[in-house]
């Protein structure tokens, strides 16, 4: 089995995400930035006043960048996040000053939904983000530097961006918009990410026997592409659990989340469209692979012309060439064969042999 890492994306699709973030409570000038998305990732950029921007994503990946001081009050930044994956954004001002650091999880209001879960496959501009710079102005009950209530912003939501109100969010167990890593579970004034003993039971988190989530982001290591949240996915990280022992010498680094390339292509879907041809075609997948992409020497059907597929099916139906396929072909009307063939023809061609 190969792991595929690119969900719901058209191969070669290039989407741009514009995410402008601008800190400074008193500033009123919004700024913008540009973002490029490749098949698997999107670059988020914008300008802010001395801000660290982080993204925590549902595949366990973690991304961070510091804005660049360009001599103005608006520092540009650029952050790459995976496209089509649920992510939380957190922005930290005064990030190098522990006493005055302000950590602000971001929520987005989109129509009737307000949520911190962003899933984007296209250009997305946040516009002006009024981050607070003065710690005296925030409400932080336990003094851990994390604001008690996420900052809600209301950017325009373009097609391809989904703000999701989830029933189940592993990264934010209680659904308050503050990711688990920035919660302070034991109320000791240190948020979980910094707290080496999240539950204050005297056993360090790394020594907890049931610690299957080394980085505490809510994603079990089994499904976490970045087990230690160091920004390196496990397949390029030589020390997955960040214990200082290279994986090659570490018996329990849990490097089971390799990234690999895949030829399987998924159509981006932002809303459901019923399709009789697709449903019929899906019944071919048991033997010919998902969306008609066979993983072995049996024929791939994706991307073949409809007329060719129909002709082939009718030929098989009449002949003796492929006994089990002949038996299957008898089960479908000519109209059904036409409908499923037309759907396969809409799929990008596969690399397997044409016949």
């Amino acid at each position, binding site marked *: *089995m190969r*792991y*595929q890492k690119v*969900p*719901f994306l058209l191969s070669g699709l290039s989407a741009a995400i514009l995410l402008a973030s601008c800190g400074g409570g008193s500033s009123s000038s919004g700024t913008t930035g540009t973002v490029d998305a490749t098949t698997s990732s999107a670059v988020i950029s914008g300008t802010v006043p001395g801000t660290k921007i982080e993204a925590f994503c549902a*595949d366990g990946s973690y991304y961070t960048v510091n804005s660049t001081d360009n001599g103005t009050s608006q520092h540009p930044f650029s952050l790459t996040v995976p496209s*089509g*994956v649920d992510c939380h954004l957190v922005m930290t001002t005064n990030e190098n000053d522990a006493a005055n650091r302000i950590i602000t999880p971001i929520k987005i209001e989109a*129509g*009737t*939904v*307000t949520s911190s879960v962003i899933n984007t496959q296209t250009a997305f501009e946040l516009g002006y983000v009024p981050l607070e710079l003065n710690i005296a102005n925030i409400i932080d009950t336990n003094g851990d530097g994390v604001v*008690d209530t996420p900052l809600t912003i209301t950017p325009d939501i373009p097609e391809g961006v989904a703000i999701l*109100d*989830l*029933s*189940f969010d*592993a990264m934010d*167990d*209680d*659904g*308050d918009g*503050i990711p688990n890593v920035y919660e302070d*579970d*034991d*109320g000791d004034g240190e948020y979980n990410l910094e707290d080496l003993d*999240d*539950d*204050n039971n005297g056993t360090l988190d790394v020594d907890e026997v*049931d610690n299957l*989530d080394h980085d505490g982001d809510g994603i*079990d290591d089994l*499904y976490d*592409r970045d087990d230690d949240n160091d920004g390196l996915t496990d397949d390029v990280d030589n020390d997955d659990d960040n214990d200082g022992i290279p994986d090659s010498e570490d018996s329990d680094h849990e490097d*089971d*989340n390799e990234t690999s390339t895949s030829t399987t292509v998924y159509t*981006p*879907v*932002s*809303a*459901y469209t*019923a399709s*009789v041809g697709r*449903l019929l075609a899906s*019944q071919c*997948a*048991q*033997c*010919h*692979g*998902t969306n008609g992409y066979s*993983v*072995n020497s*049996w024929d791939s059907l994706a991307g073949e012309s409809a007329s060719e597929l129909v002709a082939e099916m009718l030929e098989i139906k009449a002949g003796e060439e492929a006994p*089990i396929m002949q*038996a*299957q072909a*008898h*089960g*479908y009307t000519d109209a059904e064969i036409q409908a499923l063939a037309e759907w396969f023809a809409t799929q990008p061609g596969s690399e397997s042999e044409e016949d």
Partner: protein
Amino acid sequence: MSKTVSRRTLLKALGLGSATALMPGLLKAATLPHVVVVGGGFAGATAAKYLKMWGGTSVEVTLVESNTTYVSPILSNLVLNHQKTTSDLSFNYVNHSTVYGINMVHDSLNSVDKANQVITLHSGATLNYDRLILAGGMDFVDIPGLDFEKVPHAWKAGAQTNLLKDQIDAMVDGDHFVMTVPASPYRCPPGPYERACVVADYLKNTKGLVNCQVTVLDANAAITVEADTFGAKFTEYGVTYRPNIAIASVDSDARSITFTENGGAEQTLGADVLNVIPNQKAAKIVFDAGLNSGNWAPVNPLSYESTLAQNIHIIGDSQATGQPKSGHMGNSQAKICADAVLRSLNNVALNTAPKTNTACYSPVSSTHASWLTAVYEYNATTQAMQLVPDAGYPAAGAPSTENYTQMFNWSGNLFADTFS
């Protein structure tokens, strides 16, 4: 990481909950619909994958499965004759999580609150659902005295498969292998006969134990599928086939089975290796939720929605449409169900002409396999699935080495369509 007091709990206590908490009614309509799938076998894993592949970011999908690894029963008879290992047949849910964005929850279902559409897991966690899909496979009907640790069924793959393999490996010449075939309907119709052939071939032709006996005790009146193929192989291998068997009890320590034959007096047969595959019924979660009628769960074949409860769908072995119970068929039904669920969430009318299919390659030795296939359609008059008429179903192919090779193409794409 254990949690003691969460920030949310604290804020709630202080009356500072989020807007969502304060205005649930107002925001409910805009909340992403949540489909919870319980069971990560061929039916459930396929349903979860296709819900996200087709529904994308318009739907939230959670797959509840107790195990992090799934061992396919398909091809598992080839573990018994050392052509495959259970690790060759093992799959995980990493793709479900990282490729499709499905929430993976490794836990098991405790109870279903149908009125409030909430399920409770054994950990105590609760999940709200807009649609619930139960794909729990099948369960066994109890047989007095049967202890699976001593007399394996090996009908759910994994440790049971290896236990039976080890017992077969320990057989010496002259030993007797006795297995039972459950009454129809049961999971994988050709499977028991396939197993008898594979084991007989392995004992006699691979291990050279020509004096070993293989006996098949069948609850049915005759071989249920591919009778020509399996009948001929039984003759070739010298397998003793006894139909119309009703099991009374099993002595698991003595490895003996007591039964009646053709309604006659009880008799007991001893074995050196005893493989009892009991009669079957819907999964326990279906019974617990009160969704069974008799041994199986009645559903509408257009959607696999239970006829006994709204917004709960049942796919795979547990449902009662009369289609064969198999991994291939579970995968097939899962797509009809996923499409129907997405249609209903989006207020689109159900497809009224669904088609499903089944295909199965059965090894009968370490070199030969046969096949069986059929296509099913919906009959609007009977409101039931039926074999497409006048198409020669079920169609079967005789054992050959070519089919043995093709078997791995079939299973390879089926495995990938379910788990990749």
